[in-house]
């Protein structure tokens, strides 16, 4: 993709009272890319979106659009449009009038409007719904109307604030594919906010991982997954075993009492590091062939694979394997050099990546909650 920057956020800080929501955000967004702001509740991703939309003015820092500073340009004069979390369709207007709203504000001729509305309705697969009241539509249909309404005014950028959060899983998967298709066919920039890492990985060109008002990592989905910068990113994107290690020299790391070959370089000799090993990258072998040995403490059948928890010297690893193991089995583990990823120590070291407290129920409880997200981000 050519290097044409469309939006540039420079040192954006936002506080609500004593709460610092955004701490010096620096981010540029290229024309035509699908960029996702990903993070847990209250990480500042929605606030970032609102700064771009013009609903939130930053305390300090600049918002630059096509090379011009637009801090003082009000929301209704910006060439960006938003899909709101709960769609925000106008309840007193029907589907047609909702989609035509922005065009009527622009004082387009009625025949132009009719043409555009028809075009938008076919884009979102809602032909024939013109005269329906929005309250009679299902969640998925309302979502499509919201998309059509925002796209009807031909924005340069579409901002999407957890647009699929209220839909059920199946519909969500379909809409993911459809949104990506729409983005590609129109060639406009999408800035997408979500707390769902799978959604982010499958749709985005670029992912921005945020936590606590700070950007943790910016990169392509594969970069973010394979080369997480710190324990937070490694844990938030997929499952990770994160153990303390020592970088003995380039390409040699020691952890869990064993020396491993790896591919990482550029650390100081004997530097303390965090080591990430993805559960699917560990091979289960006989104990005498394993680099590490451990005892299976829990086995869960997941359909495609078994998820087993292995106790290795007191540290619980999660391993995904297609071979069935039994609780109490002694097994050996084999890890390839390219399965090991080394990270510098950070404030997040030691907080994530240990599965000793792991249980299905616990995992569900700690899922970011949509309702909580609302109240935190909209203050």
């Amino acid at each position, binding site marked *: 993709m050519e290097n044409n920057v469309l939006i540039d956020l420079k040192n954006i800080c936002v506080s609500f009272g004593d709460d610092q929501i955004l701490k010096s955000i620096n981010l540029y967004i290229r024309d035509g890319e699908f960029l996702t702001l990903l993070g847990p509740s209250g990480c500042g991703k929605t606030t970032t979106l609102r700064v771009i939309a013009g609903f939130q003015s930053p305390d300090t820092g600049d918002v630059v659009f096509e090379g011009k500073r637009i801090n003082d340009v009000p*929301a*209704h004069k910006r060439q960006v449009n938003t899909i709101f979390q709960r769609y925000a*369709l*106008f*309840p007193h207007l029907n589907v047609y009038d909702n989609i035509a709203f922005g065009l009527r504000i622009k004082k387009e001729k009625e025949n132009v409007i009719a043409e555009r509305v028809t075009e938008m309705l076919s884009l979102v697969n809602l032909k024939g719904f013109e005269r329906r009241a929005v309250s009679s539509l299902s969640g998925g249909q309302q979502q499509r109307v919201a998309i059509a309404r*925002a796209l009807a005014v031909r924005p340069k950028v579409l901002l999407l604030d957890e647009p699929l959060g209220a839909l059920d899983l199946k519909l969500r998967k379909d809409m993911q594919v459809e949104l990506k298709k729409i983005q590609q066919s129109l060639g406009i920039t999408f800035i997408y906010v979500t707390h769902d890492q799978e959604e982010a990985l499958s749709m985005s060109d670029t992912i921005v991982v945020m936590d606590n008002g700070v950007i943790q990592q910016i990169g392509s989905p594969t970069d973010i997954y394979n080369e997480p910068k710190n324990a937070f990113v490694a844990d938030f994107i997929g499952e990770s075993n994160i153990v303390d290690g020592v970088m003995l020299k380039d390409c040699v790391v020691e952890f869990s009492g064993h020396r491993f070959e790896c591919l990482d370089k550029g650390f100081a000799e004997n530097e303390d590091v965090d080591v990430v090993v993805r559960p699917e990258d560990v091979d289960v072998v006989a104990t005498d062939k394993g680099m590490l040995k451990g005892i299976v403490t829990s086995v869960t059948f997941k359909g495609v694979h078994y998820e087993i928890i292995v106790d290795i010297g007191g540290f619980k690893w999660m391993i995904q394997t297609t071979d069935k193991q039994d609780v109490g089995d002694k097994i050996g583990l084999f890890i390839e050099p390219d399965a090991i990823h080394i990270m510098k120590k950070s404030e997040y070291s030691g907080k994530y990546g240990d599965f000793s407290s792991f249980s299905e129920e616990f995992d569900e409880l700690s899922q970011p909650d949509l309702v909580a997200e609302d109240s935190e981000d909209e203050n």
Partner: protein
Amino acid sequence: MKTKKPFFSAKNLTVAPYTVWMTLFVLIPIGLVVYFAFTDSTGSFTLENLTYIKKYAGTFWLSVELAFVSTVLCLLLAYPMAYIISKMPANKQGSVILLVMLPMWMNFLIRTYAWMTILENNGIINRFIGMLADLIHVEFNGFEMINTNGAIVLGMVYNYLPYMILPIYTVLTKIDNSLIEAARDLGSDSVQIFGRIVFPLSIPGVISGITMVFVPAVSTFIISYLLGGGKTYLIGNVIENYFLGSSGAINYNVGAALSLLLMVMIVVSMGIMNHFDKDSEASGGGIIV
């Protein structure tokens, strides 16, 4: 196959107090009004009472006129006020709404008497202006404020304003802020947001406000009695006179007939108004007739 429900079922018992209440205080009184309206003093059926409407057509019309003017004035005052309150920080809204309701905690009659002392020929306003006039040596004979239609309208607006502010305020605060942001996002400036989103969505509140002001205003007799000084006679005063007037004037049958006609007129006009509100039924807030 139907099973007979026991008379003392839990459902019947919980509904019973309301049924008794409604029967005693709504159905029976209305039944009595209807009975008196269609009978003469001997108790035999007649339509003659209804013909009195001709005699009081002018009074009817004046009552509607004054109530209409008061309702419009209330709306013009209340809407901006409700809008401003709904835009205030959430923690201040409560105390301002309390201030709006505060006068309602005082007796209606006392408040209206207070207006008499303010508006009288010898009242506070005239005396104050007279003092100023004395200072600059101009002759001042006092404005005639009390006992005018203007005073009655003022009394109605003053007394019924909170009933207009509250429903409009309630509807305005219920409008989801994301709708306003969505309209702004689509290019609307503040005027367009108001005209295309906020006002249309607040119509149910406006309708119930109009209902709550117009209905008591058109049938009032106390305000016109105290501030109109007997010079302005409204339909409420006519009806009152038939029930509570001097012994020679008392005629329950005519009074009931006029009350019935007033009631029918109010129900019909509310029905017409709710018709306009049909589209926004879902948003609630309107009074259904």
